[in-house]
């Protein structure tokens, strides 16, 4: 209770308070098919957590083993930090034709959209930290969602013999191995979709192991 009142004291915006409320409920025993997952990806100006910024977020929802195209988010952020070098990777120019919104607005939309869904990202730690840093800049807390890393998931789907714990599979390697089309690679939405596809494919492989539960997936390292 102490924690709760302490948080409540802070002057959080409504959307963040609503978001936090979602995690106070104790009804996590939902069957896998009713759980909402969200595969997401961020495009950034670089790899520096402090100085670089999120350029765009792409996300798409998964429920009951299928990707819901209608349950998606694609936002582009106004940029203060501009890094010439990464433009050719993500293709987002400083004053491009895309509709851009402020970091605050983008986070508001993203948080409202994800709710308490389980997040999925490839090399999730990077995307999570980038978002958390942005949240901090807005005076908000870290993401509360459970997060599944497709890189880790993929490694665990490999047979013991071929598994290399130190190996960090890139999204491209995943695509090749799982035969996923690489169109729209390096756009946030495209990569989110590829990540979602990879998630479904790996999950169906893992599910063949008897008694594989959602908890097992979240416990994977």
């Amino acid at each position, binding site marked *: 209770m102490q924690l709760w009142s302490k948080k409540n004291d802070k002057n959080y915006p409504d959307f963040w308070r609503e978001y936090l409320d979602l995690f106070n409920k104790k009804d996590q025993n939902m069957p896998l098919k009713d759980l909402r997952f969200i595969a997401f990806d961020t495009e950034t100006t670089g790899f520096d957590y402090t100085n670089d910024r999120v350029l765009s977020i792409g996300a798409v929802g998964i429920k009951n083993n*299928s990707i819901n195209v209608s349950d998606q988010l694609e936002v582009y952020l106004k940029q203060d930090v501009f890094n010439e070098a990464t433009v050719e990777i993500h293709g987002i120019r400083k004053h491009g034709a895309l509709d851009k919104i402020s970091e605050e607005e983008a986070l508001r939309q993203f948080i409202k959209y994800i709710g308490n869904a389980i997040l999925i990202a490839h090399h999730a730690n990077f995307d999570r930290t980038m978002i958390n840093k942005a949240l901090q800049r807005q005076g908000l807390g870290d993401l509360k969602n459970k997060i599944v890393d497709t890189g880790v998931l993929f490694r665990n789907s490999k047979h013991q013999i071929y598994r290399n714990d130190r190996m960090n599979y890139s999204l491209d390697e995943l695509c090749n191995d799982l035969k996923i089309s690489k169109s729209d690679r390096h756009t946030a939405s495209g990569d989110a979709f590829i990540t979602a596809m990879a998630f479904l494919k790996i999950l169906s492989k893992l599910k063949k192991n008897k008694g594989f539960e959602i908890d097992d997936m979240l416990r994977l390292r």
Partner: protein
Amino acid sequence: MKNTIAERIQDFLKQFPPFDILKKEELLSISKQIRVLYVEKGDYIFRQDKPCHEEFYIVREGAVGLYRNFDNNQSLIDVCDAGDLFGLRIMIIKRNYRMSAIADEESIVYAISAKVFEPFIEENKEVNRFLLGTFAAHARNYFTETEKGNRIDNTISIEVAKDLSALRSVSYRKKPITCALEDSVQDIAKKMTKKKGSYVVIINEDKQPVGIITDSDLRAKVTTGMFSLTSLVTEIMTSPVITYSKKLTVAEAQIALIKHDISHLCITKDGTRNSKLIGILSDHDLLVSFGNNPSVLIKEAKRIKKIQKLRYIRKQVEKLLETYLEQDIPTVHILNIISEINDALVVRIIELSLKEMSIPPPVAFSFLVLGSQGRREQVLLTDQDNAIVFEDVAEEDYESTQVYFLELANRITKGLHTIGFEYCPAEMMASNPRWCMSISKWELQFRDWMTIPTEEGTLLSSIFFDFQHIYGNSVMTDRLSEVVFEGVNKSNRFLSLLGVSALQKPSPLGFFKQFLVEQNGEHKDTFDIKSRAMMVLIDAARILTLYHNLKGVNNTLQRYKKLAELEPKNKEIFESCAKAFRVLIKFRTRQGLLHKDSGRFIKLNTLSKKDKLRLKRCFRPIRDIQELLRIRFQLKTLM
């Protein structure tokens, strides 16, 4: 808001019908609401007999098989590849699925909500027609199942979804059987029997359809005692009727029949109940238009009133044959089915020819088919070989009787020619006075052939002894069989002579095991599969059946089967002969269909190496059976 994922889905969909007809923004709004499914090999997308999903599907990647379970037998209806639609039932009937969709390999499937798509169907006629056509092509399989008669029916109706024939207008019956409101049940039952129909439409004084009565109504309502024979038709009719205009397509008709669970649609002038009845369309008529169901073709043959129209049936038979070969249906089944249909065609032609005659036949007669048709081995249309046997008449009436039957035979052979059976070049037809005789004369002829053997005699007897009664009085035909067996029992000499002719058939391979081809004539440089390979097997089977006094076994394959039972020590030879014969028949049929001829003369350079080897493998049993004949009838001394 930008939606990159939806744009990519749109890029994919726009390549395929019916999406290619839609406007860009329409397609994008559909794409935004799609679900993407990933399925592994063996995963179900939906199951037969389970409620319809709210979505239909299009394959993005991989392949999805549509299967129908029937009597614990799972049959494949269609395989959908990238861009193919399936699960369209929701768009049309919203009842339980009639088939299962199972991933044939790892696949990605897009699920499109019916609610989202429905507005586009209503607005866009072309989209609607495409969906109906696809649905109908898949649905076709349930229709064939309603005729449970033949096992094979369930497996033959694989049709490709893109088959646009489903979109052509139906051909309906123009003169429907009708009756008036005040008719009694008995009146219409008589009318239906007379016109060989399974329905009657009740019309009012303006000729508008008011109700319909079908066979099943009579069964359910009259024969059960619920209504009496004197009841009025209006008491038992189903009313109102389902009406359509004549512009109805095959697909729409099919769907209408499934949707309303009925067997007949009334065709009216403007498509409503309040206009004049101009025709009727039954589920049976529809089936015929698909042409892939043998029992329906036979039923249809029995109803046709013009010989020209029978030709259409024979055309359908050819289509059927192609499907059978593609699916490797056992040769025995193919032969049986095709023979049944051919018989039905011949019988119908005889019936129609009899009707054309000014008087009924003066005495009983039997119409025989000979040669390959008699052996029930005629797959492709070849020459017609037939004969007439009629009852004995007084000497002074003989000529006039023969003249009558010759005239009848003329009509029949002409009819057969019309539907595609070529005239026999050797005039071995009932229209030839030599092959249109009384039973006594036939007996004499048969005895002649057997006791005073000549080359012509052995040749003719080898054709005539494979006769099959097709129409009329079979007593006379049985009598002829007896004559043949009596003759055989008297001396083995006749059989020996037949044996010699079987050994003298030109051999298929030369000294260096090369194929021997025709040296000259029209078919120069082709391989004559009939006389160099099949005839020996046919002749040997016939001779040995006669030797064993096996009556009523005319078919070469059946003959070898019986022989294997009778002579266990030669079982292997007989079985290999049967096998070789099956291969040869299929070979010939394939060639015939390919070149639109009898398939008899094969151009060797059109065969693959594999085919040539397969063909050569059939020649070994030929040598073996020739050897067996040589020893059995001590033919060396005779040759």
